[in-house]
């Protein structure tokens, strides 16, 4: 089965890509498989200047998931353009730059610089792990709209806005960034969480809170994509806890046109490659004749499911 898919500004060989922050700038995974096999690569967040990020511990395990508070550690946008992106360009794969910042100006500056070197931008207005910027842009719809509009103005490539699930009304956020001119959505970033160690009596993560990822959050992500798909007319890159082709099909049915795999790369560095290889058969097994048939498929029939045994 043909699993190519076109999204605004992106021609994907397949709908599967690694999620930002879970794949660095590709180098480490290039030891495991050919990055050209991927649908795209979403690289680690870029900020205006180099950032060291948060103190350690930065990760903690949770039930069916993990918390992280890396704090946007990255070498800064100039260094990414000079050193990291050229490495990625050695592969035949679209590059999506994850753009972050503490101020609107920083977002705009980073987007302007990096957009000439990549195929699309993922505007990260949803990072819960930095004290300034990040998540507040993702939880206030007028801020979200504004930063989207300003980044769109300067970007030479299409802009996908990455939404935070830590909101009361995800549809309002999606509509705001649509109004701001977003070309697509990326859903979702991590849910803010905390773990406390009974022995030390303190949060395990030095930052206190961290972002929850993994299968634990999948039902929330699926619900939000299902809601947003009905309300806005933008393509969605779905993510949150993807580990199997069944998970991918669930995201497609909810309304995602492509998916990103995040923390599962830590369990199995080959996961993206394996899922790409398995997806056509998986779609066929469930009777899909094309990838498009799956996208938004849960919205086609309205009757509730019921149990049959045979």
């Amino acid at each position, binding site marked *: 089965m043909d699993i190519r898919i076109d999204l605004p500004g992106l021609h994907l060989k397949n709908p599967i890509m690694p999620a930002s*922050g*879970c*794949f*660095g700038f590709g*180098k*480490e*995974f290039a*030891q495991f498989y050919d990055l050209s096999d991927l649908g795209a690569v979403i690289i*680690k967040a870029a900020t205006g200047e*180099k950032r*060291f*990020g948060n103190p*350690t*511990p*930065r*990760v*903690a*395990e*949770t*039930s*069916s*998931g*993990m918390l*992280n508070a*890396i704090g946007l*550690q990255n070498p800064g946008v100039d260094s990414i353009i000079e050193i990291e992106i050229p490495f990625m360009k050695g592969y035949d794969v679209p590059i999506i730059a994850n753009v972050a910042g503490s101020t609107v100006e920083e977002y705009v500056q980073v987007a302007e610089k990096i957009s000439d070197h990549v195929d699309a931008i993922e505007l990260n207005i949803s990072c819960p792990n930095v004290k300034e910027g990040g998540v507040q842009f993702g939880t206030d719809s007028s801020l979200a709209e504004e930063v989207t509009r300003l980044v769109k103005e300067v970007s030479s490539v299409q802009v996908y806005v990455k939404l935070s699930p830590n909101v009361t009304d995800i549809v309002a956020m999606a509509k705001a960034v649509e109004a701001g001119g977003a070309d697509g959505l990326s859903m979702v970033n991590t849910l803010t969480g905390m773990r406390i160690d009974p022995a030390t009596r303190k949060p*395990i993560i030095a930052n206190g809170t961290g972002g929850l990822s*993994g299968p634990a959050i999948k039902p929330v992500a699926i619900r939000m994509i299902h809601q947003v798909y009905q309300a806005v007319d933008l393509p969605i890159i779905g993510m949150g806890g993807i580990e199997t082709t069944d998970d991918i099909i669930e995201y497609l049915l909810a309304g995602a046109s492509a998916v990103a795999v995040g*923390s599962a*790369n*830590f*369990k199995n*560095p080959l996961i993206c490659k394996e899922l790409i290889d398995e997806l056509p058969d998986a779609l066929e097994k469930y009777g899909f004749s094309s990838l498009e048939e799956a996208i938004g498929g849960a919205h086609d029939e309205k009757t509730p499911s019921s149990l049959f045994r045979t």
Partner: protein
Amino acid sequence: MKVIEHKSIARDTYQLILKGDLIEEVDEPGKFVHIQINPEFFLRRPVSIADVDFHEQTLTLLYKVMGKGTDALTEKRVGDQLDVLGPGGRGFPVASLESKHALIIGGGIGVPPLYYLAKNLVERGIKVTSVLGFRSEADVFYEDEFRELGEVTVVTNDGSYGEKGLVTDVLPNLEPTIDTYFSCGPGVMLKAVTEHLPHLPGYISMEERMGCGIGACFACVVPTPDMDEKGYRRICCDGPVFKAEEVVL
């Protein structure tokens, strides 16, 4: 990899021998493997390679039960398969060492990687003196194995075995011929050790909670001194072994 042997060797401490081709890539001591204990755990657990037998195609891990993951690891039986990634990281640079007499300082479950290191050093004709610190008598392991490779001082916090105190308490008594030290253990111990031995070149092996274990997620960073351009090292791929002055403890 396949479990070949699994037994308790001290309080809450186990020796696990695994077989598989992964061992071909263990080119220096101090590397670690990243273990998926079972599907209930979302993250892998890093464990140092404590010994390698290239003939038998096996490697030895020594681990202590510190939480749910290591506790579940104790349930693996001979013949079971274990999902192991690795070997990861950079170990002790034994090939390029200019040493005649090495001091090994291990604390608790930091001892394991030092055993394969000590074997490597002795093979290269380097004299090895070891100081191994444990909480109490019941926690002591691998004393005899180290003794086969050179002189050993065991220290216990409560004095129930060997010398009483901390590993740093016995450092002043050591021979002056020692020209390099190698240490692995709790963060506080590593800090104390490097402060005690500022005049000697030293290598330390560190640990931190990991995400990916291969350098992609930046979970395991340690800051470097101010003059360093990059500003950080990743324990999983730039380390776990660092020159003592390379990182800020």
